[in-house]
């Protein structure tokens, strides 16, 4: 709640850990000497080298061979080692129950790929899971096609989710009064069944109260509040100080998703204009920045899908068929949820976009560790990370993958701590190394850049996102682990 109220005057605390991470990376490079600083006691090179060597070996294996299978397998191995031995170099991924199942899922995922990439997972357990295979545009299209063996796990978590979101009237197991958010995040991390997604996203965004009894009242109040803002501010869009903001919004919306008929409807475009303008007016430190418009679309599509008949594809739904009241609800909910998201990545859009610059730098450092051949290849050809990764950060990869994949990716982002900020950087690293082989096959600047701008992701869906997020999660476990370890080390004299 307080998160929603937060205006963009309250910036997220500076990420000091990032600096530490940079140090860690620096130290680990052979060329580099230990960094001394007031906050950290002097570090001995040997200590760090020997501690980090294992880490780089693990990743060197994946990087040198440029083989995703090996990389994933070694990632899983690393995680497994943690689980088993509590290796002191990389702290255990987590003993917290939240992450346990995720780690197991990741291991399953990687292990299953390890022995033979035979795609034998296409057959199992398609039938049992009502996960809405209908709307290929936007649905989690297949139940867990990425890992056959986790299908049973899916069934269990889907059952929990269904119980959580059942209306209560169906009898035997009525939903709990208070939602266990940790459990919910765990259950949603690997993808949310389509029908449950709207309500799950409201909860995960912090928009819908966890307490069932407060929901009705709160939602009503927030929706009223949004329409009150519209009344209060929207008329100011042609005023001198605001006209430029509105002009930018107005020219961006029609070119947002040119190929999806839904977004070419005037009514829909007007809804987006209101959402974006009200948000911009209430967040003067950043205002509207191109790209923010894209971030509204997943929420809009998901909340709209609640009212779209089963046999109609959301992407071509005629919104004029929807009662006004429901249009209003979709609009208000989209506004509040995108507001919550933007609160978590505010410095992406303030002056000089420091959040993006920092994340691009992080990506670069990360790549130099996890896929050195690719990193060197890019550098040798004069490619700068900012040239391609700016858009990855500014639009949260939405320009790089299809909308249905984005929506599936956001199931995970919404379920992950700092999903849209920190975790996204790891996802970008995982995404980049997905193309390692192809990029290294391109032998000059133009070839690489053209490929980077048009990565062939048209067919991406649930399975690819599963693999991507699993890989990102292992990266984060290793590097976050190393980071925390460094903190702990330097804290004790």
């Amino acid at each position, binding site marked *: 709640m307080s998160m929603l109220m937060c205006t963009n005057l309250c910036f997220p605390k500076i990420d000091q850990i990032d600096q530490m991470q940079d140090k860690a990376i620096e130290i680990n490079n052979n060329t580099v000497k230990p960094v001394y600083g007031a906050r950290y006691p002097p570090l001995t090179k040997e200590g760090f080298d020997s501690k980090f060597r294992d880490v780089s070996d693990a990743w060197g294996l994946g990087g040198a061979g440029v083989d995703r299978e090996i990389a994933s397998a070694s990632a899983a191995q690393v995680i497994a080692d943690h689980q088993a031995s509590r290796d002191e170099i990389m702290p255990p991924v987590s003993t917290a129950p939240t992450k346990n199942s995720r780690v197991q899922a990741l291991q399953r995922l990687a292990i299953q790929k390890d022995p033979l990439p035979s795609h034998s997972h296409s057959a199992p357990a398609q039938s049992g899971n009502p996960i809405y295979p209908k709307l290929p545009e936007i649905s989690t299209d297949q139940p867990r096609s990425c890992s056959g063996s986790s299908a049973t796990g899916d069934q269990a978590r889907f059952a929990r989710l269904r119980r959580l979101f059942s209306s209560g009237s169906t009898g035997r197991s009525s939903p709990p009064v208070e939602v266990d958010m940790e459990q919910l995040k765990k259950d949603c991390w690997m993808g949310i069944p389509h029908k449950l997604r709207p309500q799950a996203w409201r909860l995960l965004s912090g928009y819908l109260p966890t307490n069932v009894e407060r929901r009705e009242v709160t939602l009503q109040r927030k929706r009223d509040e949004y329409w009150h803002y519209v009344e209060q501010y929207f008329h100011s869009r042609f005023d001198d100080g605001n006209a430029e903001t509105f002009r930018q919004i107005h020219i961006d919306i029609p070119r*947002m998703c*040119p190929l999806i008929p839904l977004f070419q409807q005037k009514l829909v475009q007007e809804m987006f204009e209101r959402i974006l303008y009200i948000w911009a007016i209430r967040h003067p430190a950043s205002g509207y920045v*191109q790209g923010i418009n894209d971030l509204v679309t997943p929420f809009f599509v998901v909340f709209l899908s609640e009212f779209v008949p089963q046999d109609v594809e959301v992407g071509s739904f005629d919104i004029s068929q929807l009662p006004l009241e429901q249009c209003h609800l979709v609009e208000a909910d989209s506004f509040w949820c995108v507001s919550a998201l933007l609160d978590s990545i505010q410095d992406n859009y303030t002056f000089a976009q420091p959040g993006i610059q920092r994340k691009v730098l992080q990506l670069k450092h990360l790549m130099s560790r996890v896929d050195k051949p690719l990193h060197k290849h890019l550098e040798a050809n004069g490619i700068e990370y*900012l*040239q391609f990764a*700016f858009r990855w950060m500014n*639009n949260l990869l939405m*320009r790089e993958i299809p909308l249905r994949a984005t929506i599936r990716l956001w199931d995970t982002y919404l379920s992950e701590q700092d999903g849209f900020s920190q975790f996204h950087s790891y996802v970008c690293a995982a995404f980049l190394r997905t193309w390692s082989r192809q990029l290294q096959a391109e032998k000059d*600047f133009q070839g690489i850049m*053209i490929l980077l701008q048009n990565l062939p992701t048209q067919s991406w869906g649930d399975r690819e996102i599963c693999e991507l997020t699993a890989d990102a999660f292992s990266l984060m476990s290793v590097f976050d682990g190393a980071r925390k370890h460094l903190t702990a080390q330097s804290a004790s004299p």
Partner: protein
Amino acid sequence: MGSSRDDEYDYLFKVVLIGDSGVGKSNLLSRFTRNEFNLESKSTIGVEFATRSIQVEGKTVKAQIWDTAGQERYRAITSAYYRGAVGALLVYDIAKHVTYENVERWLKELRDHADQNIVIMLVGNKSDLRHLRAVPTDEAKIYAEKNQLSFIETSALDSTNVEAAFTNILTEIYKSVSNKHVGGDRPAVLQQGIVIPTPAHENQKKNCCPS
């Protein structure tokens, strides 16, 4: 190195496309490099990149064109993309006067961040919108002369002058570079083969402008 395959060229010039949001920069680029036009093309985020080679006086000149995002908020970042650019197409929309007024700000942007010898061409795009014209051709022409810019009006939609705009600026760059070449010192050649005039050649600049 690395110019393999069908990728042979004598000169490689980096050119940036700048100007307000919505003036048609991306469509100028796609018209020139792929002969395509999209009425509803997505807004550019950061930079987008394309290339095309043309013949100038018997030499193959490869244009490496960087299309930038127009929104003001991006400028702090996009200015980084000016590095190494030898040409700039500064685009406005002939039907939107404010985009023409902002040309001044874009020029300042170039002066602050680009190489001082960069060749600049002022481009009035959307010349097909005759009935909506808000910027008279003569006014823009005079402004361009006063600021020592070349000038052209284009329509990415009906292709008018798009080819000419790029050919002209590449020829102009070629001449300024090859003049200097004749003049003695070689122009600086970057790792990727981008030819940029070095500051040492500044004094020769004046006599190389075609009229």
